[in-house]
């Protein structure tokens, strides 16, 4: 199956003669040289795929180009060069009519500062993408009501955005982006403007939604913990370059560069690593009463393992045994070398 989103050698360079400078450099872009020439490098040679139903979290500090990358893929800005395929079609070549069609059918986006229309109520905001598509008022409001229920805002349909808290406003933003039932869901630092407690709650809510909806997601954040918590895969960006793109546990275990290492150093391993990464696979016939799954995060099953005195078997999704795990390994992870 071909990937839902596929980027190859995507560049975004801001400045007047970006195009010529880029073709002169032959794809080998040095940010400093470009800056001297009056150009700012936003995205530097990004190539990656996102598969159907996968959540890719793009993580980076401010100015790393992560939002720019997202905007290239949604074509809110035009990439300077490169190919961006959505379901096999290059969006850089689309005309505005095709683009509008694509956004109306396939894409939804959530913004950092909510970007709700201040003159519309919760219900009208959510129904908005449907209404610009030409859905009748009755049907769009009906659908919007469903969405209100989905994001847990029932009873506040007629509130204006200004009357809602930040968390509630972002729920509206989420509902709006989902109203057209898009395949691809873009989220641009959706929880960054929220209080830490609300942020945690919204992340849980988000995971719940994703388990129901199973969209293809690109999620941008500057918060490494958030990335670890949510991602199927993480792309870490710095100065427009993707430093590493891998599964969360792999990034923690094998940081590719010093920059990535700085983020992973303080991460508690047990919160990231799965049983799979510490199990003993050489013993496929392990016996025992208790079993843990190989995809379980260590922290969640640590107590269970430590309470039993013996070796525990590890099973896969089909409940067939794939290895065993010894409590001493867990203790090692928990209390470190």
């Amino acid at each position, binding site marked *: 199956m071909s990937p839902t989103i596929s980027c190859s050698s995507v560049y975004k360079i801001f400045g007047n003669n970006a195009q010529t400078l880029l073709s002169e450099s032959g794809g080998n872009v040095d940010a400093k040289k470009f800056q001297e020439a009056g150009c700012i490098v936003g995205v530097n040679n990004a190539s990656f795929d996102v598969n159907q139903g996968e959540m890719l979290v793009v993580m980076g500090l401010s100015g790393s180009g992560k939002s720019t990358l997202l*905007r290239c893929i*949604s074509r*809110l800005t035009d990439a300077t060069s490169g190919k961006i395929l959505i379901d096999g079609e290059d969006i850089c070549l689309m005309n*505005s009519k095709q683009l*509008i*069609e694509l*956004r*109306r059918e396939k*894409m*939804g*986006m959530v*913004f*950092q*500062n*909510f*970007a*709700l*229309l*201040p*003159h*519309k*109520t919760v*219900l*009208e905001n959510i129904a*908005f*993408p449907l209404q*610009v*598509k030409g859905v009748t*008022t009755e049907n769009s*409001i009906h659908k919007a009501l469903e969405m209100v229920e989905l994001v847990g805002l029932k009873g506040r349909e*007629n509130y204006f955005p200004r009357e809602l808290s930040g968390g509630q406003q972002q729920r509206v*933003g989420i509902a*709006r*982006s989902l109203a*057209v039932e898009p395949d691809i869901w*873009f989220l641009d630092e959706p929880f960054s403007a929220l209080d830490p407690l609300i942020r945690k709650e919204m992340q849980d809510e988000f995971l719940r939604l994703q388990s129901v909806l199973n969209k293809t997601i690109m999620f941008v954040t500057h918060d490494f913990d958030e990335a670890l918590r949510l991602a199927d895969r993480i792309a870490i960006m710095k100065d427009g370059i993707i430093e590493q793109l891998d599964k969360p546990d792999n990034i923690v275990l094998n940081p590719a560069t010093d920059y990535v290492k700085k983020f992973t150093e303080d991460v508690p391993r047990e919160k990231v690593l799965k049983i799979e990464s510490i199990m003993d696979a050489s013993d496929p016939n392990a016996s025992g009463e208790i079993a843990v799954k190989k995809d379980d995060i260590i922290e969640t099953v640590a107590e269970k393992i430590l309470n039993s005195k013996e070796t525990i078997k590890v099973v896969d999704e089909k409940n067939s045994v794939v290895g065993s795990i010894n409590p001493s390994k867990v203790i090692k992870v928990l209390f470190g070398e």
Partner: protein
Amino acid sequence: MNKNYLDIIRSSKPAQFGILLIIFLFLYHFIPQNEGNYFWRLPSLLGFIPIKLNEIIYAALYEWFPLKVYDPIFEMYEEKAAFREFTKSISKGLLFLITFVRELLLGGDKIIDIFVSDAWLKENDWMSWPALPWTAATVGAFLLGYQLGGFRLALLGGIGSLYVSIFGNWVPSIQTLSFVLITTPICFVLGLSFGIWGYLDKKVETALQPVLNVMQTMPQFAYLVPIIALFGLGDHAGSIATIVIATPPMIRNTILGLKRISPEVVEAGLMSGCTKRQLLFKVLIPTARRDILNGVNTVIMQCLAMVVIASFVGAKGLGLNLKVALNSLKIGKAAEAGFCIVLIAVILDRFTKAWANKQVDYFENLTFFERYKLLIIFGISILIFSVVAFIANGYFDKINYLYVIPIEKGFTFAHYIDAAVDWVWETFFYSLNSFNKFLLTQVLGPMKKAYLGMPVAATLTLTMGVAYIIGGIRTCLLVGGMMLFIAMSKYWDRALITMYMATFAVIMASLNGIIVGSIFAQTQRGSKFILSVCDFFETFPSFVYLIPVIFLFNITDTSVLIAAIVYATVPATRYTVWGLNSVPPSLHEAGTMSGVSRMQRWTNIEIPLAFPTIMLGVNQTVVFTLQMVILGALIGTEDLGQLIFGALSRAQDGPGVAITLGLFVSLMAISVDVIVRKWAEERKKALGLD
């Protein structure tokens, strides 16, 4: 050593200003005052401008692009200039719209006359649209208010309409209202279109900016003569004058509002799959609606502020009544008409705001009757009151009070006001008079003399020097060019008189505004209170300010100056409060912890930080003052305004003179604006406020 002095001068602005002052005084004293000396007065090399402008206007009206036009009366083709036909059709269209609204409410046969022949209409004299009885109109205003904003607005509309009716101002009020109802939407559409265009195209915005600057600083009077020449006299001419004056703020508000939208909202619109048109009408304009509505509000206020001035070109209504009353010094009558204007302004203001915030309810499931309940009640009440009024025709012999209460028969409180004014006049005559005399002989007289005794070389050196020190060489050349333009006309002396009046009023108004603003801005409640007072005073048409001062100080410079000072204190106060309120609370706290007293906090923290904003207020004060000083020509001053006013009665060379003089006033305001804005920007940058 020598180099050291130069360094000091280069780095210290006070030193530069000091040297400039010395040069200025030197020039002032040593340039001989005789007409042949070009350092004293420049020759009027640009005297041809008004004449040329006139030639252009008349050529456009009578010579350019002749078209064959069919004349139905003489049944033949005639050569007429295309431009003239164009202005004529605009006039006709506007007049039709205004008359249409007017007759819809007041009754009449002018609209019917357009569609049938005169002779037929004379034979069938029953053929006339019936007037709406004021009783039904009051019910209508009440219901409309209820529909828009509930019981409170209903009361406002109902009582307002009732007051207007029983005090006999029904007819002129409707005349004024019809004028506003037609003019406002035109200003709205024009302003919104240009604003959107300016927002979408950077080049258009750059081109619009100077045009808007000139339009907003031109004295309203200057437009009147050219408009008479182009469009003739009548309600439509008043409407056009108002459109010219009220559209620029609408354009500015639209651009401002659209620019303030956060880029994320635009992106959200795009990601929702909006087409360009949908983005504009469903996302951009509604999101900017607060600023756009402020624009509409300004337009309505401008329309009402213009009703008096529009009456000079033939607009009927409250403005005309006010002007007539004022001309015959009937203060009470004038105040009554003024009150009606303010009342209409307030009602329209509230109604439009409520309408803009109206919400759609998706869950109501109403029957036809429930949905149109209010409309049905209104229809029934029109029917009932019309029938009653019609039957009453037999009961009243001359005037049917159930249709209209004419102004002579309405209630009035004019004589109470007149009595109060008389009392003030009699009681304070001596003190007022001696104050007036003192001001004229001790302050204003010498000041005027000093301004008129200023050699042109000295004036130019001073203004250009200030511009150079504050804004650099570009500002200096810009300001110098504008001043030179005025100096090379034959109106320089008049311009100096305008400048002296403006200087005096600006200084006084700014001081007032800063003091009043500072006192009230100490507490949050105080700020809120004084800002709403400012709102209230700004709904007064500028003309209203002249009513009391004429009576108290006669027809002298004092009257005009006091009106100008009071009028211009409003923006000075407003900006002072804004500036002081924008000082971050953390700085207040830091000051308090450093142990400052209230006075120290004001002088050391609040005023320096608020000063850039306050200076922008002073900018507004200059514009307001110039408007009022020019308006003062109505009651007789001898500056530029008086010449503009005089041009009204000179059909031949009037338009050119009025435009030129208006432009001069505008250039003075813009010169100040350029310097002050530049300075405020630099201060803001230096304080890190941007």
